[in-house]
Structure formats: C-alpha cells, structure tokens
C-alpha cells in the first residue's frame, strides 16, 4: 500500500496555539508518460475534498523511455525544474502529508533509480514507482467515488478502460466490484513508436495498428468476459478529447456520455487524418496528435467487443484516486472493501485454473482463524492476514499444470498473475507462502524465497506454517472441519477442532505438518477433537 510521506518541519514555538481542527492540506504528485501533475486539496476523511490547487506540466517522459529505454538529460532537467516548482507550491500551503507516484514511463527507464535519487536530493520529494496493479486500484477508487450510484456501477457488468502512454489498464467490474483486472501492451505512445519507421500508406499503417490491437484484445478476452460488459467507463485525455468533440456541452451532472455508434463514427473519421491534419483541424499540440489515433483505435476495438451501447467518461483520474487513498485509506470500510476486491480477484484466478473452490475456501477460513488465534505469537499485521488468505485460496492452482510438484507450479502461476489491490512484492510473498504448503520448508537454495527481503522471509515462514496446518485440516477435501481453536496448555498448543465425521486423516495430517509450526513458533501441537457432530 502507499507510503504517506512527511516533509521535515521546524519545531513549533511554545506560544503558538494548537493547530486548527480542520485537517491540513494534503498533496499528490502524479508523474505520467506525457505530463507531471500536482494536486493540493483539503478535507476531512468522510466529507468531500476541496481542491486548492491543480498544476500540470508537460514533460515527455514516455517518449524517452519507450523509444530509448532511458530518460534523457533534457527531460530529466525539465522534470526536476517542474518538481521544484511543485515543492514550492506545497510549502506555500503548508502541506505535510503527500504521496508522489511515478508510473510506467519511469518504471521502465533503465536509469530510474538515479533519476529518483536526483529528485529526492533536489526537491526533497520521495517518489514511489507503482506497478500496474496499484494504478488499477487507485483509478478504481476515483471512478467509484465519481460514479457512486450511477447505473454503470450499480447494475450489470462494466468495463473500466484507461489507455495510457505506456500501457492500458483494464478492469472488469461486476456490480461495481472489480473481479478481473490487468495491464496490457496497448499504450498509445508505445503503439505510436512501433510504427515509427512505417513508410507505407497511412491506411495500411492503421490496419497494422488494428491487427496488433486485435491480437491483444484476444488475450484480454481470455482473462475477462468482455462481451458481458453492458457499460463502458473510459478514462484518459484522448477519450476525454473525443467526448468533448462528440458531445459538445457537458450535461448537468458533468458526466459526458456518448453513444457507441457516435464514437465509432468519430474514430473512423479521425483515423483518416494524418498528423499534420489533426494538429490543424483540432488545434492539438504535436505530442497529443501523435498518440490520439492509436489510443482512440484501442478504445474503439475494446468497445466493439462489449455489449455496451454507450460510453461514460468521468473526469476521474489516478490523481483523484491518490487523493482519496491518502485521506481515506485508514477507514475501516475502505479496508473491508479492498479485502473483498482482492478476494474476488483471487477467486477469478482460481477459477481460471479450475481450482477446488470449496476446499480452497475452507482452507482459507481455517487459515485466518488460526492467524487470529495466534496473533499474540506471530505479531503480523492485517495486511499479512490478507496475503495468507489469498495464498490459501490459490495454494493448489498448480494442479492445473501437473499434480506432481504442484506446489512449485502454484508458485509460478501466482508470481505470473495480477491480483487487484496487491503489489508485485506482495504477490511474491503470496507465491512463496503457497509454495511451502506441503512438506518442504524454505531453504537458502530456493531462489524465489531468497529473492524476498528479510522481513518478507520471516513473514513467509510464519504464514506458511499456518497454511500447511490449515491445509492438513482439510486433508480429505471434504471440508469436515468447521472451526478450530488454539488453547495454550503448558508449553504446548492444543488444537481444538470442531468437525463432522471421521477426522482420522485430518488428525494425522495435522500432526505430520506440525513440525514446521514447532520450528517457527517453538510450540508442540496436540490435536483434540471438540464437539463431535454426527455425519449429516
């Protein structure tokens, strides 16, 4: 999750009255592929946010990275100057809490680390590079806020699409909840770059683009049921431009909406123009004109795949999501919502690999139960609890590849997947916890395990010890164990199990798996059956 950074402040003098009850302004900085933006806002956690200042500076980070693989000196200098200006504005407002993020244009630059270091030294700002999954999460937060109670989120399935410079972020929402989400190579700047050497007709160049987009859409269709989306929610400067041209004046609620056919017609007409013509006709700056057509083609091809007859274009952006997250992420409702979203995203992956859902759910329930029972012993956080739950749900997906060594295949598949709301680092922890659900324990010779930092390795040890015990309690895959308590008795832990039917296999499996638990926590395990229920 995000880091909330604080800026160093001088000590207040003793005679200064205590700060006012309203919260201090907060700020977010978003470094995208073609511009960097600052927003300063204030507001309480529950109420609306009041924007104080919004500044944008065009800096072509994406062009450098997607063409040359690194950020050029001129671009870096321009960015640093702009960020210095942002810092001055933040100081003027007395901002203490802020979050600054960079996306694919910085993430994929080979000199990203050096660049971010210079940013820190020059401006004092700590910029966090976020991955596609976090981008999706933040964008979703913004959209959900902006479209609260809108039919696109309330009934039926919706496709949320943002075609960025480097890649496209797409989420499939079921009654407003994200169940599938991913990042795909449909970035407008990238697509534009790939055609840079094209010397054939403009028409053929466009056909090439469309073919490429089709191939990617084919893959997207495997991961989410595009046809079932009855609404399309589109974000991004290019589609907002199109909305402006098609719709003209904004409706009363400020939400541009246009019909599918109108959009298709508009895109068809725009595609016919080459760059010079676009600049002239629509008075666009060169950089925007270059990426407009690839972006609009991508939106069009996705729209055609769905069964939506109109497109909503809220002015919700990553920045809005950042702000909401900064101000509201500590709220319990927000945390519970996120947990649900993470779990449904995980369940979608489980289904893709045809997992045994009742077994997975049972093991997940028992895992978190044990986690809660052992809280005072393991000292791990709620975030770890969520990671354990996901690892438990997905621990057996490796069976899809091969039953032999399925724990290793589970690790591979999880590491290659994207789950809404979890970062790449967290996915690595989850994949390791899932790998160690059987007999083998983590070892220095296991590369993926050693790729974790120390804190993550310790967490993996504890979580996998719990997972293997929970898995043993459903050894039969018949979900006979309904509940479990841990009662400390002398130096031991008594595992009191409530279940139905013959629990012999579960007992034996649990005792066999308890060794690692003893190694990690230093306690011996004793199995005791609680209230015996007759077989239903």
């Amino acid at each position, binding site marked *: 999750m995000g880091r909330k950074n604080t800026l160093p402040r001088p000590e207040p003098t003793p005679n200064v009255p205590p700060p006012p009850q309203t919260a201090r302004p907060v700020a977010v900085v978003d470094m995208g592929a073609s511009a960097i933006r600052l927003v300063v806002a204030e507001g309480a956690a529950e109420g609306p946010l009041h924007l104080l200042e919004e500044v944008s500076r065009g800096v072509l980070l994406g062009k450098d990275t997607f063409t040359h693989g690194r950020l050029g000196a001129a671009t870096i200098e321009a960015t640093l100057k702009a960020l210095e200006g942002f810092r001055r504005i933040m100081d003027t407002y007395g901002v203490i809490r802020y979050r600054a993020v960079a996306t694919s244009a910085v993430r994929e630059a080979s000199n990203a680390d050096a660049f971010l270091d210079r940013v820190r030294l020059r401006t004092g700002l700590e910029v966090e590079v976020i991955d596609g999954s976090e981008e999706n999460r933040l964008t979703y937060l913004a959209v959900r806020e902006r479209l609260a109670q809108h039919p696109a989120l309330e009934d039926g399935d919706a496709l949320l699409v943002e075609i960025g410079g480097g890649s496209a972020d797409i989420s499939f929402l079921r009654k407003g909840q994200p169940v599938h989400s991913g990042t795909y190579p449909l970035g407008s700047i990238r697509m534009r770059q790939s055609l840079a050497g094209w010397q054939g007709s403009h028409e*053929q160049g466009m056909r090439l683009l469309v073919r490429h987009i089709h191939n990617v859409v084919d893959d997207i269709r495997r991961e989410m049921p595009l046809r079932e989306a009855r609404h399309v929610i589109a974000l991004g400067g290019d589609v907002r431009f199109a909305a402006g041209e098609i719709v003209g004046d904004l409706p009363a609620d400020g939400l541009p909406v246009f019909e599918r056919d109108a959009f298709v017609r508009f895109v068809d007409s725009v595609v016919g123009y080459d760059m010079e013509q676009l600049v002239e006709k629509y008075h666009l700056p060169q950089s925007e004109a270059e990426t407009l057509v690839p972006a609009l083609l991508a939106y069009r091809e996705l729209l055609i795949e769905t069964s939506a007859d109109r497109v909503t274009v809220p002015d919700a952006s990553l920045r809005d999501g950042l702000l909401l997250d900064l101000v509201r992420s500590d709220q319990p409702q927000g945390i519970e919502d996120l947990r649900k979203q993470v779990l449904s995203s995980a369940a979608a992956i489980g289904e893709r690999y045809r997992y045994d859902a009742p077994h997975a759910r049972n093991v997940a329930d028992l895992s978190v139960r044990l986690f809660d029972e052992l809280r005072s012993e393991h000292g791990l956080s709620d975030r770890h609890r969520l990671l354990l739950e996901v690892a438990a749900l997905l621990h057996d997906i490796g069976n899809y590849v091969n039953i032999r060594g399925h724990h290793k295949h589970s690790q591979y598949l999880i590491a290659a997947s994207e789950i809404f709301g979890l970062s790449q680092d967290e996915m690595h922890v989850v994949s390791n916890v899932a790998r160690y659900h059987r007999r083998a324990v983590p070892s220095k010779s296991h590369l993926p395990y050693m790729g974790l930092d120390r804190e993550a390795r310790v967490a993996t040890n504890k979580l996998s010890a719990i997972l293997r015990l929970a898995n043993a309690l459903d050894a*039969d895959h018949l979900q006979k164990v309904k509940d479990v308590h841990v009662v400390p008795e002398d130096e031991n832990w008594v595992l009191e199990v409530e279940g139905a039917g013959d629990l012999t296999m579960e007992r034996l499996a649990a005792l066999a798996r308890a060794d690692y638990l003893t190694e990690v926590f230093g306690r011996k395990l004793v199995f005791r059956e609680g209230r015996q229920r007759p*077989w239903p």
Partner: protein
Amino acid sequence: MKIAAIDLGSNSFHMVVVETLRGGAFRVIGTDKEMVRLGARTLSRGKLPASAMTRGLDALRKYKRLAESAGAEKILAVATSAIREATNGEDFLERVGNELEIWPRTVAGDEEARLIYLAVLHSVHLEGRRALVVDIGGGSVELAVGGGKGMEYGVCEKLGVLRTTEEFVKSDPLSAKDEGRLVKHVQKTLAPHLSRLRASGFECAVGTSGTILAVGALALQRAGETVPEPLHHVKVSADQIHAARKWLVSTDLKTRLKTPGLDESRADIIVAGAVVIDTILQELGVRELILCQWALREGILLDYIHGHKRSLARAEAYPDVRRRSVVSLAERCQWHEKHARKVAELALALFDGTSKRHGLGDGERALLEYAALLHDIGHHIAYQNHHKHTYYLIKNGELRGFTPLEVEMVANVARYHRRGRPRRKHPEFGALARAQRRTVEVLAGHLRLADSLDRSHRQIVRGLEVSGRGGTLRVKCDVTADPALEIWAAPRRAELLERVLGVTIKVEADEVVEDGTATTPVAAPTTDETAAAVAAEALGAGAPGESRRTPLGVTES
C-alpha cells in the same frame, strides 16, 4: 485407452487392467492379486514395518511392469486403512511415487464406501431396488446404503479381518470366549449406525471383497451346491453363511489348510471374517447376500472414467500417444487452435523446403510440429512473457510419449518463437549439448518465420513454396487476403533462420486486393534492398485498372 487400477488394501493388493470402450464402459483384460499383508502388525502398532513396505514396493513394481506390458497408459491407485492410519504411511506413498512414479490416492472411509457402492451399481442388476453393500477388507469394513443414483449413507469401521484376527483370535479352533468377545465387539461397533442404516432401508444386500467371496464360496460348498466360476452375481442365503461360520469356528488351521476350495493364504483370517460377516447380517436382518466381484478398484476406474469422458474421447480420436498428449495439453491451455495448426503446417512446409540446407530428419521434424502446436499456450497464464510460460507449461505439463530430452527440446524450440537469440546464458538452453542447441536454433528459426506468416491470426497464407540456390532462399506465399502485416513482420523474424542456415531469405507474396484477387507480386525487402527500389519496381509493373499498387516498402526498425 488402456488403464490399470490398483487397490493397495491392508490384506492384499489387487490390480485390474481394462480397456475403455465408448460410452464410459470398459472391458477387463487382466487381473492380479498379491497378498502383501501391509496390515499385519501395522494396524495395532500404528506404523508400517519395513518388511511390509518392501513387500508392498515389490508387488507394485511387478504390477507396474505388468501394466506397462499390457499397454496401460495410466495407472490409478488407491490406498486404504493400513496406509491411511500408519504414521509413516505418507513416507511409504512418497517412496512409491519416487521409485515407481505411481501416485496412489488415499481415500477416507466414506469415500471408500462411495466408490465400492459405485462399483456395485455398475455390476449388479439391482432392478431398481435399494441396496446395502458390505465390504470386509483387511483393516476396515464398509457398509453403504443407497438407491440407483449412488450411495446415500456410508459407514466405515475398524472391523477388518486382519485387525480382528490380531485382536480377538487367540485360540485355534476359536474358543467360545474369543468368539463371544468378537461378536460383542462387532455389535457394539455397529450399534450407533443400526438405526440409521435400517431407516435408510434396503431391499437387497450385496457383498464384495475377497473375504466375503471366500466365505460365500465356502457356504455354497458346505450346502452342497456347485460353486460357479466366476463367483459374480451368485446368491447365498444368510442361513448358509451362518452354517459356514459355525463350521469354521469348529476347525483348526490344519483342517482349513486341507480344505479344497479354500484359499490357503486366507486360512488364518477367514474365521474372524466369517464371524464378522455373519454377525453383521444378523444385526441388519439380511436374508440373502448377492456376491459381487467388483470392488474398490473397479470403483476408482468408474470414477475416473466419469471424470475424464473428454480425454477418453480424445484417446479414440488420436491413437498416437504423443500427438494426443500434445493436443490434450494445448486444449487444457485453451489454445487458439486455428493459428497453432496453421503455424505448424507452415513450419513443416518450410522445414521440408529447406531440408537440403539443414539436414535434420523425421525425429526433429516431429519435434518442430509439436513445438509449433504448443508455442502460444503460455498465453493462458499471461500475455507478458508468454514464451517463458510456454516453456514452463511444456516442461511441467506431463507430456506423454516423449523422453525427458525430447520434452526439453520441444520446450526450448517453443520458447524461442518470438524475438531474441537463444543464448547459452539462458540456463535451459545452455544445459543442452552443442548438437542439440544447434537443432533447437534451426527448429526455432523455422517456427519463428512460420509464426510471423500468421501474424494477423487470420490464416491468410494458404501455402508456401521454397526455392532458390546458393546464398538466397525465396519463400513464395500463396495468400488469400492482404498480407501487409505478415510481410512486414517477416524479415526480422527470419533473421534467426538466416543465421543458422547461412542464407539470405526473401519472403514474397502476391499483393492482394481484399476481395482475394492477386495482382503484382511484391517482395518484402531484405536488409540489402531499399524501400525506394521496391516501390519503383512495383509501380512499373502490372496492368492499369482497379488494382491498387501500393509499394510495400518497409525499413527495419
């Protein structure tokens, strides 16, 4: 398809080899039995003695050989109470897995009962009646009640013959005291289930397992009836069983060993077995027992067949194990079949057309085909790095009919279907011997070019012809639609093949108006030609008219 099923029982291991037939049925082509006696001393001590494990492994080793020589492609195995309850049971199973590559499923009591009931359902003509099924194994006894759809209520109790013999048979002949204790134990164990079993109701009773069949056969013999062979679907009355029990209790081991028709290996345990079955029948008020030769192992076969209808149907369609296995893996990963088959077709056409240059044979040709069919399965995991996911799935997806080296080759060829040179520093490629690395590069070169010829996934290249001499090869494509994307992609993707064969490759296609008519042949430029030269050539040739003559000049970028 031929499948073997092995039941690792506490008393004996049984194997049956069957051939599946259309409609989910099968016919038995062989059976075997080994009295392994895993349960001896295990059930009381809680651990499998080393000697028992050795016996077990030997028996399984023999079964594996038999199954393979019978042509079985799959071995199903199930382990029951002795292994289930032993603390080192899993160790034993892991040894079985590591040494023999057989992976038995451990089933718990209720699951065992369900599978036995399934076997009975498919082998005994119940005529719509509700049935009670009784199975007496070495370690446990299963009782199952149900109707025509399957088991509704199952019981599994520790009353198996090995166990009860160890615990209660302390005298020979069996003393009245020992008999009384055994009977009381059976009654006490059954008591909690009786009302439920009676309430479920049954109209007939079926007995399975070696012990019951042995007792049944003896009962018929003692009653003066002929004992049919096979002993399947034969009815024995409860009175006859009772008489057999009384007789057995009065005998000593020597007498029993001399009794014709009584299996010597059962002579010691059959007494307890008869007492147990007789007591059960009395407690439940059963008048007559139908003997059934099918039991747990047939149950697992049926269970497997029901769950794998599709793969069995595929077995009929693809008799070649390798091809079937490849298609099976591809289907599991939801392949784009048309694209994959087209790429395979084009890859083989290129391979055949360049055979004098590369000198590889039929074996390598087959590997190329399989790699082509599987090259995109990694998409099922993720678009990003799908070529590496393809490698992983091929390597670990249990392809059958290939040696490990062949699997490694196919996986490497498929992995390199995109860009980039195979490099020795890639560990999987680097681990191959030099000759194998060259083969991978040659095959991957063909695959890569073939894949580019279906870049649009529309299968517009109907066929191709390779010609040329010396340092230049021409690949002439017969296309059904505008090949702009394919031709544009081809030159870069041909580089690998150019390098390994030491040639320059020119890919050509007739330029086609979208309605399918061909006009002027236009070639994609090689790295030597410039776009302008190609454009000039195209503009100068051909007839005027409706055909578009747009130069397909492309520079390498």
